[in-house]
């Protein structure tokens, strides 16, 4: 793309949805915006396909000065993000153009989309953070769209965690920006190096890791995922699980000091957390009773695997190039597959005219991909293993990683099996919508074929390693299926609520309110006490004052002359004494 076109495309990608969202403010235009809302992601998609990395746009008037551009990594992210939004948009046309509160839904949709794309194309911190916040808060409107109890609870949890995340990110970014050359206009690209050299490095890494972790479903910050995915409308859930969860990952990738300095302890912590997430999420997920919640736990589990890659990158900076590819590929693979699975949950509910076989094949494809058997899954997992085991001085313990990844794949397989099993129970419940399957078909196709586009962005796909890993990939799937069959026959799911440990933490947000109330209660209590005292004192004072006032006035008045004489005498005496 030539310069001008490229520049325009960079602005249009986030600008079109934003502009549509603003235009929505005019009531007369509202009717027309709903039908075109799904297409708002198209400029971004085109940009991802044809944009050139390195091209930048400066918007000096924006915030502290804004920069837009693409890098090698963000192109891939932009691609799958835009594609998922597009597919979900087509799928969700019903929500966007008609139905209850479709207008409100539409505007939140557009703003969330604008934010999501904006954060990918942003090059400077301010714009990145702005877009991130826009996406986060607009998505709330999408999550609570159905307005039932569950959606409201999900929204509440999401919002509390999101605010917490935003605050942590802001803290991390501020501290990191301080370490850059220009703290008032920091570029994203400068952050990793600056953080690596900052005195508050650990604090920065912690706050950024946890802050973005809210989006990326870190254990104990993940509660909003199962709740929101379960409660939001399906297209929203697809966008959340496919696109927005990767915003957290992108946050990690662009800010954490990856590849500059080996951070042994942080890498280890991240790897261990990732592994914990991968297994714990699988264990909890298989006990869930709702397909979308199962998928949510699968997402947490998969993000745990990606975390392993990031942690490894931190420990061994020299693995950077390989791991970068692996993480990007993994992200692409997981997003598309997960989005396809989510859209599928709704497609399967409708009585479609398609033969059931095709439907189930279509539903199976992303499931298999996640389990690691489709090309994309194979490539993703293989590149991760390849990255981890490349020739580099890595800790001894890493030799167990492939095994652990394999075990995690068993979990994934079990989750997928559980998901499909649950789907079967839901199939064919609702009346068909004639176009409901278009988006799903598009994204399923992308799941299969998306991997082929990687060379377009200059990413070397390790096909050979992938082929070699086929055998490695088979045994976990087989084991997972056996386990699933066993479980289906003999085990009943444990009663674990969708947001597992949240119950234990629920009192926490209330504490702040209590503190405010306590201050407020002490205030009035103290004030009441004071007022009581004051009233008493005032009463006494009034009486005393009355008497005293009368007394003194009478005294002065009756005996003014006596007083005068006394003063006269005193003064005369003093005068004589002084003399």
């Amino acid at each position, binding site marked *: 793309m030539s310069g001008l076109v490229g520049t325009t495309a960079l602005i249009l990608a986030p600008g079109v949805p934003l502009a549509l969202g603003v235009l929505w403010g005019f009531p007369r235009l509202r009717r027309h915006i709903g039908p075109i809302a799904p297409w708002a992601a198209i400029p971004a998609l085109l940009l991802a396909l044809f944009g050139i990395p390195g091209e930048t746009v400066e918007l000096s008037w924006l915030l502290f000065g804004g920069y837009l551009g693409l890098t090698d990594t963000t192109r891939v992210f932009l691609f799958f993000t835009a594609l998922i939004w597009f597919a979900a948009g087509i799928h969700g046309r019903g929500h966007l153009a008609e139905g209850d509160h479709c207008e409100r839904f539409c505007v939140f949709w557009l703003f969330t989309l604008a934010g999501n794309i904006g954060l990918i194309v942003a090059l400077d911190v301010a714009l990145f953070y702005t877009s991130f916040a826009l996406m986060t808060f607009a998505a709330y409107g999408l999550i609570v769209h159905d307005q039932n109890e569950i959606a409201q609870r999900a929204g509440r949890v999401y919002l509390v965690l999101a605010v917490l995340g935003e605050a942590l990110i802001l803290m991390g970014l501020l501290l990191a920006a301080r370490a850059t050359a220009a703290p008032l206009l920091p570029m994203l690209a400068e952050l990793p190096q600056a953080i690596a050299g900052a005195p508050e490095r650990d604090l920065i890494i912690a706050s950024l890791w946890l802050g973005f972790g809210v989006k990326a479903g870190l254990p104990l910050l993940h509660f909003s995922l199962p709740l929101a995915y379960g409660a939001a409308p399906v297209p929203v859930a697809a966008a959340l699980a496919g696109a927005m969860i990767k915003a957290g990952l992108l946050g990690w990738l662009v800010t954490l000091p990856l590849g500059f300095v080996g951070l042994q302890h942080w890498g280890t912590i991240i790897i261990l957390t990732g592994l914990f997430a991968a297994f714990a999420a699988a264990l909890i997920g298989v006990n869930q009773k709702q397909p979308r919640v199962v998928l949510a736990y699968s997402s947490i589990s998969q993000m745990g695997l990606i975390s392993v890659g990031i942690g490894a990158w931190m420990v061994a900076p020299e693995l950077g190039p390989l791991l970068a590819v692996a993480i990007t590929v993994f992200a692409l693979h997981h997003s598309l597959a997960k989005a396809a699975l989510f859209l599928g949950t709704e497609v399967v509910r409708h009585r479609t005219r398609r033969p059931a076989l095709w439907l189930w094949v279509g539903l199976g494809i992303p499931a298999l991909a996640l389990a690691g058997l489709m090309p994309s899954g194979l490539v993703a997992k293989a590149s991760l293993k390849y990255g981890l085991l490349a020739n580099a001085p890595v800790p001894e313990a890493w030799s167990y990683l492939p095994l652990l990844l394999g075990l995690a794949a068993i979990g994934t397989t079990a989750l997928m099996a559980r998901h499909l099993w649950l789907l079967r129970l839901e199939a064919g419940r609702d009346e068909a919508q004639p176009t409901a399957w278009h988006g799903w078909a598009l994204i399923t196709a992308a799941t299969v074929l998306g991997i082929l586009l990687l060379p377009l962005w200059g990413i070397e796909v390790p096909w050979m390693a992938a082929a070699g890993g086929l055998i490695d990939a088979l045994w976990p799937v087989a084991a997972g299926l056996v386990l699933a069959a066993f479980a289906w026959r003999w085990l009943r799911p444990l009663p674990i609520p969708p947001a597992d440990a949240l119950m234990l933490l629920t009192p926490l947000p209330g504490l702040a309110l209590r503190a405010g109330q306590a201050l407020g209660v002490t205030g009035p209590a103290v004030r009441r006490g004071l007022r009581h005292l004051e009233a008493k004192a005032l009463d006494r004072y009034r009486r005393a004052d009355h008497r005293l006032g*009368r007394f003194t006035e009478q005294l002065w008045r009756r005996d003014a002359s006596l007083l005068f004489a006394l003063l006269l005498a005193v003064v005369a005496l003093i005068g004589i004494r002084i003399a």
Partner: protein
Amino acid sequence: MSSALVFAWSGVLLFGLGLFGFIAHRHLLRRLLAFNIMGSGSFLVLIGLAQDGRGVDHVPHAMVITGIVVAVASTALALVVFRRWYRASGRTDLPEDT
């Protein structure tokens, strides 16, 4: 003690007596009389001290004459007010609070 000092001390004595009367009495007419005694006392002081070895001095004379005029005027005013007060309230002394 020179005659001048005798005059002066008698004046002071009169002033003191007048002051005592002024304080001791409630009846307004008595207080007015006491005031006039005080006035006479101070005139006596003025005349007496002024004679202290400097021959005849006209200034105190002028002052005393003026003072007497003022005292007469004051007494007259006081009597007017007293009469009206007596008529309005029937009392010869001042109430202790209003």
